């Protein structure tokens, strides 16, 4: 009995000390304060199979070989599942995560129709943001890949489905509560606030450029540039490119019906983009003549952006015409439509395009933009009049509304929109019916939605031809 007592006393003495040393021994929380919310936990599968030692090597080899074979055979569903399992079994190797994310976002989608591709791209983003980063919070390659996916895969039109990707991303971040939206995007509110202070404008999480900029900046902040100077330099370049992207196409405008978005220039980022462009053009090795030409083009674009944003007077002030340069209106039309309309037909095309954009924007409640496109339409109208007979602006607008009315009246769901139009006169046959609008504003038209439907536009949103 005495021995039993000794054992009990020994237990009572040792157990609290064991608990105390356990606390000291436990690794520190792996997620630093800037890590995405809910971070730092290994997937259950990783924890259990991770403890199987060299057996894990054999499991991994088998999974990799099968995944590569499935990818070659085009069996993307199983391959994608296995790819995620592989990444979870090698959770600390950032190259595995980025390889699998790129496969999900880039290799698989072209096998599907444009409207079926987004889930794969989103999967690529989520695997990086929600699984890889919490486990590797200071990894420059993972930040780089995440930023690049937003900037390149979603923000640019190198994939036919680019406009759809941008719309789907914007749809994920609709809402008014900025904290809730930041949490949904896995963004740290304090870093976001600092970043917004730097660029001088609030980042809209509906724009891909906002995500690209945030993740590039976060990678630079939490990563170790000394250990990966090339990665850090790439992050710095992406940060600059994201600012430029936000300036050129960072302002979302939601379609009148449905879930598509068009993206127009956001002049709030003009200063940040200017700095990024000047920095890029100042790099050693850039041809000075090429740099000067690029700056001239950027200035011309700035004038157009001011015009379509409804800031005509500022645009006139911005337009500095050196000797021999085109006059203000010709310069604006040239930048907007690729070249200043040289024929009456081309000028009428520009007129119809600008007017339709103005009508759609007005219906979307974007008054400044609608006024800006109205100004652009006036310039196109004057150019058409210079080149021959042209309808009055009022008649042309009425004709555009008439066409939209007849298109929308074909579908009961669009009838309320049709009721908001004022088609006083009939159509004007010589006024072209534009397929595409500037900044893909044709996406605001409910008839631009995918699928062969009655009354649908010819141009599909899953077609990113410029």
């Amino acid at each position, binding site marked *: 009995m005495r021995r039993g007592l*000794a054992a009990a006393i020994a237990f009572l003495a040792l157990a609290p000390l064991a608990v105390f040393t356990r606390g000291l021994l436990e690794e520190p929380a792996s997620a630093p304060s800037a890590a995405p919310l809910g971070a730092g936990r290994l997937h259950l599968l990783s924890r259990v199979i991770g*403890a199987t030692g060299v057996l894990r090597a*054999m499991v991994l080899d088998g999974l990799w070989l099968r995944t590569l074979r499935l990818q070659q055979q085009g069996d993307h569903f199983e391959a994608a599942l296995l790819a995620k399992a592989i990444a979870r079994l090698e959770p600390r190797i950032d190259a595995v995560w980025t390889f699998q994310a790129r496969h999900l976002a880039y290799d698989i989608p072209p096998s599907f129709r444009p409207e079926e591709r987004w889930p794969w791209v989103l999967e690529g983003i989520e695997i990086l943001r929600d699984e890889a980063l919490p486990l590797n919070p200071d990894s420059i390659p993972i930040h780089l890949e995440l930023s690049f996916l937003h900037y390149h895969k979603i923000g640019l039109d190198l994939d036919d489905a680019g406009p759809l990707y941008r719309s789907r991303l914007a749809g994920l971040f609709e809402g008014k509560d900025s904290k809730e939206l930041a949490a949904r995007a896995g963004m740290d509110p304090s870093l976001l606030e600092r970043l917004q202070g730097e660029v001088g404008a609030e980042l809209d999480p509906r724009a891909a450029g906002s995500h690209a900029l945030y993740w590039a900046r976060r990678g630079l902040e939490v990563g170790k540039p000394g250990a990966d100077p090339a990665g850090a330099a790439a992050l710095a370049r992406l940060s600059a490119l994201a600012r430029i992207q936000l300036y050129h196409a960072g302002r979302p405008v939601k379609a009148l019906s449905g879930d598509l978005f068009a993206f127009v220039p956001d002049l709030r980022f003009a200063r940040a983009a200017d700095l990024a462009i000047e920095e890029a053009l100042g790099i050693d090795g850039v041809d000075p003549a090429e740099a000067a030409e690029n700056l001239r083009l950027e200035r011309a674009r700035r004038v157009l952006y001011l015009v379509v944003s409804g800031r005509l007077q500022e645009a006139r002030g911005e337009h500095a015409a050196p000797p021999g340069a085109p006059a203000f209106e010709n310069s604006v039309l040239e930048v907007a439509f690729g070249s200043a309309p040289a024929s009456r037909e081309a000028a009428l095309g520009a007129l119809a395009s600008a007017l339709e954009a103005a009508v759609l924007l007005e219906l979307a409640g974007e008054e400044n933009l609608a006024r800006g496109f109205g100004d652009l339409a006036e310039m196109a109208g004057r150019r058409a009049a210079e080149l021959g007979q042209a309808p009055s602006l009022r008649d042309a607008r009425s004709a555009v509304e008439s066409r939209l009315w007849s298109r929308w009246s074909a579908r009961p769901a669009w009838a309320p929109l049709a009721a908001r139009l004022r088609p006083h006169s009939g159509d004007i046959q010589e006024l072209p019916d534009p397929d595409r609008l500037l900044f893909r504003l044709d996406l605001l038209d409910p008839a631009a939605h995918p699928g062969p439907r009655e009354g649908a536009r010819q141009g599909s949103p899953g077609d990113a031809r410029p």
Partner: protein
Amino acid sequence: MIRARPALALARLSFEDATREPAYAIVVIATAGANALAPALTMFGFADDSNLLKDFGVSTTLLAGTLLAGLSVLPGAGAAKGGILLTRPVGRGLAASARFAGISLSLLLFALVSTLSLLLAARQGPPPRAGYPLDQPVLVFGLGGAALALISSGAVTLLRGKPFGAAAVKFLAAALAGAVLVSGFFDREWTPVAPFWGFDPVLVRASILASLGAILLGAVALLLSVLLEGGAVFGLVAVFLAALIVPRGSFMEVLLPGIRAFSRGDVFYEAAPFLPWRQVALGAAHAFLYSGALIAAAAWLLERQEASR
């Protein structure tokens, strides 16, 4: 009063019984073999193949050590078979402590073989490209030493009638230690270099931590053998899995052994792997205290069982 002589005798008996089991030798030799094969198996890690190998090796040590801890308390195995615990006049607490000491020694011998084979495998490493030169000293002394150890233990078995497994494990430990010492004086192509060239000190520390984890699980196994008898192995498997998956900060985490703190393969993926000796010392202190608490609990239970008879 602790009576040292019977305690040491019991510990030695327990150690010899554990190492004499064929299953012990099979697990130890299989672990060394798996480590030897690891450079050929570790692929698809991009630039991290070598780190992946070290991660695999450390968790192999912990897993195989857990398996040995479970095997050592099987009802038909080693000390349990010999009925050592029930022989008077040794007290239950002393018997349990001595048995745990024997099990710990057998686990340390295993850990030595595992660590040495892993060090050699990591120095050879997965080939980063086709045609990458082999580490000749490691292959000659490591594989040659292992082969020599097996042949010698076969001879000892034939000549002296000693169990092959126990002899093979002891010879293997000696041969691999020699291989690490000697090959450390040469680089991959036999150029003389400073001692212990090419061996990763962080891997040594991580392996020691894994070994301490295995010893801690030996104490768990011993307590479970008192509580569950024949079900101790299944209990150990359940505890091992639960310790892996239990959420951080939960009450259960306090009770379960901290396996994750002893399996530190993650450090190898850092740009500059860092695992200080302080962490190893803390691991040793925790393993000692946690094991001590469990052995005390086992002794108390045994005393109660004895008193109730």
